């Protein structure tokens, strides 16, 4: 009908075969994870850093937005003369 993912409702151990099925799933998952492409940490770190630098000026908490533009900082009080 449609391919829903596995959903174990209840498992009862019977002659160890459900253990086998579970173990097979673990091995399949590990095979999948072992096969993904990875980049070097130096490359990944450089990219994280670049993102920070590129967006630093747009980060209000980093640059310290003044009271007039930050809705939460106290406004200067107007007084009637």
């Amino acid at each position, binding site marked *: 009908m449609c391919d829903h993912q*596995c*959903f174990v409702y209840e498992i009862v151990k*019977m002659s160890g075969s459900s253990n086998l099925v579970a*173990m097979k799933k673990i091995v399949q998952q590990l095979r999948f994870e072992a096969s993904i492409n*990875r980049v070097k940490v130096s490359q990944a770190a450089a990219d994280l850093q670049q993102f920070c630098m590129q967006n*630093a000026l*747009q980060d209000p*908490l980093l640059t310290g937005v003044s009271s007039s533009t930050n809705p939460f900082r*106290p406004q200067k009080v107007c007084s009637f003369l």
Partner: protein
Amino acid sequence: IGSHNFKEICFFERNKSCKIYSLSFFFLLPASALTTGIYMIFSTNPEMATQEVQPNETLTNLKAESDTLKTKLEDERAKLHDVELHQVAEKVDGLGQFIMKTRRTLKGHGNKVLCMDWCKDKRRIVSSSQDGKVIVWDAFTTNKEHAVTMPCTWVMACAYAPSGCAVACGGLDNKCSVYPLSLDKNENLAAKKKSVAMHTNYLSACSFTNSDMQILTSSGDGTCALWDVESGQLLQSFHGHTADVLCLDLAPSETGNTFVSGGCDKKANVWDMRSGQCIQSFETHESDINSVRYYPSGDAFASGSDDATCRLYDLRADREVAIYSKESIIFGASSVDFSLSGRLLFGGYNDYTINVWDVLKGTRVSILFGHENRVSTLRLSPDGTAFCTGSWDHTLRIWA
């Protein structure tokens, strides 16, 4: 062991909010007695359905292969570990002094605040607490706009819908319910409540996806699930955690259909929302992971744990790349979030404080005091001008 035939036997509805296929499989016992296994629901993935256990795939062989693969994974990750993040960031300017204070205090909950979320309009907030109350606040004025009493205590999860027209919440009732927010203050919100998600244990976190139409949930039953709000139908479920799942975060929309979850099994898993597959898994924390949050670029995520550390995991390097910890910090981190540029990581801790970390250099830039009990939840406002914390001291604070 015997041959296994996986056949679709029948299709039935467990309840109106999810449909499960039921299959039974037959074992040939030595006495040649046929016994049906208890209902095990399998995917109709053709590969799975036609699999038969080969004689040499014994439990021992599989265990050995599993160990080999785990070692191979560690080796592959280690090979690419040529430098530390903070070394790369040595040339970056250090951050100056940070002066962040409580700018608003939201009082009104009668018990511990467990969760909060911002509305996209950058001023409304929804919060939930142990006493079963869910309150919608205007954070600028600190006024309460709506209040709902849930039929259960410990409302551990709440979320604002992207449209701003509804909130979702749940906890010990094992459900996630959606309440449309009415403009009419006198209207009884509870009357229009819609039950969306059903888990077999407490709801720990929930989040709308890009629209009001779908909700992602995580639960103490060890699973995460994606639901259609209108019909309550289960669209996808995510299995892999071996203990309670405590938190989840959706990837920034530009980076595609993935989300990360963290649990009591000390693992943080990244999932493909369409297939339900776990794509990457990280297990370096030494205790429960209470909070996970994507780095703004979507290439990494941070986690906060009961082991008193926060960590940064890079998805493309497939490994942990930073640990944010100090000897003086011995209480767990309950909640983490990044500033807009990703340079700052805010962590709410069980020792009542908020530690602010320089994500690149790995150092702490500030410690914020104010709450009188543990900080349980922390979120940056949508425009990054402030962040909000909720605490067991019954209050929420806005910091800027």
